[in-house]
């Protein structure tokens, strides 16, 4: 009834005037709330486990497991000072950052060459790079382990620094190609007429304009490196060279005795740097994710 009297003049509102709050609660808010609850519960559970006293962890009946009134920092203390956790975190950061920088440099050149220099066969190379994105690490790690061994890189950070770019380059090249295509050709033509070399054009015109794309690619690459497991598990042996995901599982489970508090604290601290970084660059991250898919 009220539908007919609703103002139709506001075009920006679209068809939203048709929606009624009670209906929306049932069809949108409740399912959305349930899904978000399920998506976030593991993080809540991580946090609460990391700050619960040990005896509460294994006794669900005398204390309400969902909340704790006597938070403790014991697990976090154990993690930071009784294990090599800071070293592992440092390794993870070092490997991720260096691999990301290397991958970005290589992809900037490759993407620029494919999109703008357009050498013979550039289209084919673009297609091959996309195919390379579809080659998963889990079919490469066995032969790659012998390659790494023969190059003498086994058990050094370089084993990871040099192999991670293979996961990152196809993705970021593809993403940057999309960004470079949006930069007007005329800018480059002007610069060429003024006598700029390709190198100068890339550094002084194209790159400054592609900064959002670089940030997107960088953030996404960083999370990919941080997440990587199978190479780190296969190529690194010494505890002091391990990355967080590999080290945390082996180090904090002594036999059957799992140190759940410290494990959860470790998982939390391992994710926190990424989540903080992500929170600053949500839009860039999303555009990297969707950009790579849309292309």
């Amino acid at each position, binding site marked *: 009834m009220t539908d007919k009297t609703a103002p139709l003049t506001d075009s920006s509102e679209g068809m939203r005037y048709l929606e009624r709050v009670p209906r929306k609660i049932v069809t949108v808010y409740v399912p959305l709330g349930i899904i978000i609850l399920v998506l976030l519960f593991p993080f809540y559970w991580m946090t609460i486990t990391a700050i619960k006293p040990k005896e509460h962890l294994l006794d669900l009946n005398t204390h309400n497991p969902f909340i704790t009134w006597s938070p403790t920092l014991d697990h976090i203390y154990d993690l930071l000072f009784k294990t090599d956790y800071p070293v592992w975190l440092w390794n993870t950061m070092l490997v991720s950052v260096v691999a990301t920088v290397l991958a970005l440099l290589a992809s900037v050149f490759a993407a620029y060459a494919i999109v703008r220099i357009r050498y013979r066969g550039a289209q084919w190379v673009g297609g091959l790079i996309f195919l390379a994105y579809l080659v998963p690490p889990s079919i490469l790690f066995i032969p790659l382990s012998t390659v790494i061994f023969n190059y003498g890189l086994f058990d050094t950070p370089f084993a990871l620094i040099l192999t991670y770019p293979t996961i990152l380059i196809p993705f970021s090249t593809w993403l940057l190609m999309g960004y470079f295509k949006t930069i007007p050709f005329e800018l480059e033509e002007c610069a060429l007429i003024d006598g700029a070399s390709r190198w100068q054009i890339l550094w002084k015109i194209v790159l400054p304009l592609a900064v959002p794309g670089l940030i997107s690619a960088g953030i996404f690459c960083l999370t990919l490196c941080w997440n990587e497991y199978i190479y780190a598990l296969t190529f690194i042996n010494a505890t002091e060279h391990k990355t967080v995901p590999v080290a945390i599982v082996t180090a904090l489970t002594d036999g059957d005795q799992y140190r759940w508090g410290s494990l959860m604290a470790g998982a939390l601290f391992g994710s926190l740097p990424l989540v903080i970084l992500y929170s600053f660059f949500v839009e860039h991250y999303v555009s990297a*994710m969707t950009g790579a898919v849309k292309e």
Partner: protein
Amino acid sequence: MPEAVLREPAAPLKPPTLLSRLMVNRDWLGFWFMLPAAAFLVLFLAYPLALGIAYSFTDAKIGQDIGSANFIGIENYQWLIGEFDCKWEWAAFWSRLFGGDFGALGALCKIVGDDQFHLAVFNTLFYTIVASVLKFAIGLYLAVLLNNHLPFRAVIRAIVLVPFIVPTVLSAIAFWWIFDPQFSIVSWSAKQMGLATENINFLGEPWNARWSAIFANVWRGVPFIAITLLAGLQTVPPSLYEASTIDGASRWQMFRYITYPLLTPIIAVVMTFSVLFTFTDFQLIKVLTNGGPAGSTELMATLSFNRAILGGQRIGEGAAISTAMIPFLLACILISWFGLQRRKWQQGEAND
């Protein structure tokens, strides 16, 4: 005299040097610009890929060069795939079938080969298909929900994506604790609510473990699919919905005849990625169940790791398992490629 000054010949242009000619040559420049990326991809991607296929025809042990390994042809594959061992007797077949034994076929004709490998192939396919279908259904539903006009939509979208940001291994550890046989919070809650009388053995029973692993995979994959599909949904012009509303379309019809067809290309790409990464999943299974109990969650990727790196250290056999994944991946890529072809046809460009 002005004329004389004018007639004085200008200094001739220097002929372009080889270097300066090279500096504007597209192919030459392209070569140098491509070099860093190509070096990485050839040394650490294309070469290992070929090497892996080569290793799969040898009986190499770990640390053995391809040159010193014995070439054994397709023996690895024969061993893995096995052969049919059929004792086909119609009488026995019918008597079993009518006796209510529906395993009749399996009992008479079985594949004699590597049972662990067969189980891993089954697990991988089951895991991939079920997880991908669930991820797609829930992801699309979540995307449609998020496409509504919501307060704080940007914040909600950022929160939804968090499971995808957090490294898989770290969230797998959280699930490991959530699925603990004794102190699982889910078991405890189920008991409190009267849904269960004793602890649920999430990771100790084969089918429980499979569903738990699928749940964890879906939990991590849904945000990716939801957010990418949301980006696709936002490109659908609202005028189409307005027009269909005037025509009296129901919500389901709007979804079926407007949203879904316009979303098909992006669905094809997203699902290809999702299926590829689920099929080759390693980390979640490695941390959550390590293939157990008794190989019931072993995937092809984890099995190849166990064969090649741990245990037997038989690189050749592990490489054969990895190589056996390639046909599945290719099939997946081809299906998606034809999905993209359809998009061109729908858009009416290059209608050939």
